[in-house]
């Protein structure tokens, strides 16, 4: 069966520090991968998606970047965190763009 791992579960970082959140999927190959952010009182916002290794599409301009160094690995990064980067980050995968999303358990990021 397929599983998705996302870590860490919680993270507290000072403003200006770097960020690296990792997501890996097991049990499938060539998944579509997604990073979402959920800010307090707001819906999930798609940040990045990837249909293959090295292929990253960004939905909104922001302080974050994403990379897909391996087929089932998706990394969310920042060189310098802002207060506004605080939120709940969710990684997800799907078998195709019209297939249902499978979500990880999320990372609660607090930037202080």
């Amino acid at each position, binding site marked *: 069966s397929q599983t998705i791992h996302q870590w860490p579960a919680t993270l507290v970082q000072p403003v200006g520090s770097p960020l690296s959140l990792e997501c890996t999927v097991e049990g499938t190959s060539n998944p579509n991968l997604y990073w979402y952010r959920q800010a307090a009182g707001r*819906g*999930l916002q*798609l940040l990045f998606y990837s249909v293959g290794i090295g292929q990253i599409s960004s939905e909104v301009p922001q302080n974050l970047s994403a990379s897909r160094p391996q087929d089932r690995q998706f990394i969310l990064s920042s060189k310098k965190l802002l207060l506004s980067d605080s939120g709940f980050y*969710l990684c*997800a995968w799907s078998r195709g763009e019209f297939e*249902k999303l499978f*979500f*990880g*358990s999320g990372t609660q990021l607090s930037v202080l």
Partner: protein
Amino acid sequence: AQSVTQLDSQVPVFEEAPVELRCNYSSSVSVYLFWYVQYPNQGLQLLLKYLSGSTLVKGINGFEAEFNKSQTSFHLRKPSVHISDTAEYFCAVSVSNFGNEKLTFGTGTRLTIIP
């Protein structure tokens, strides 16, 4: 661009009572509609979806939703809720012929079941 509105941020319901969680969308083109559920300390999972065909869609755990094009709504219903239904429910909309990359989520409705 499409958008989705979940007017109720919190809905308390007594156990075994019926529930309706409201979802309205806005789009100038045809849409696909989804309900995702997030149980405590878990990731989101798909509850049900409407792509085409019958406007009444049945999902997991006894939930169903009805697509109403004239009212641009996709309300989620269950005739009798259980404690285990306590979760946050997200409505989402995507534009037809586009997939997850155009999926827009609502702000969620927290359903609390009262014993």
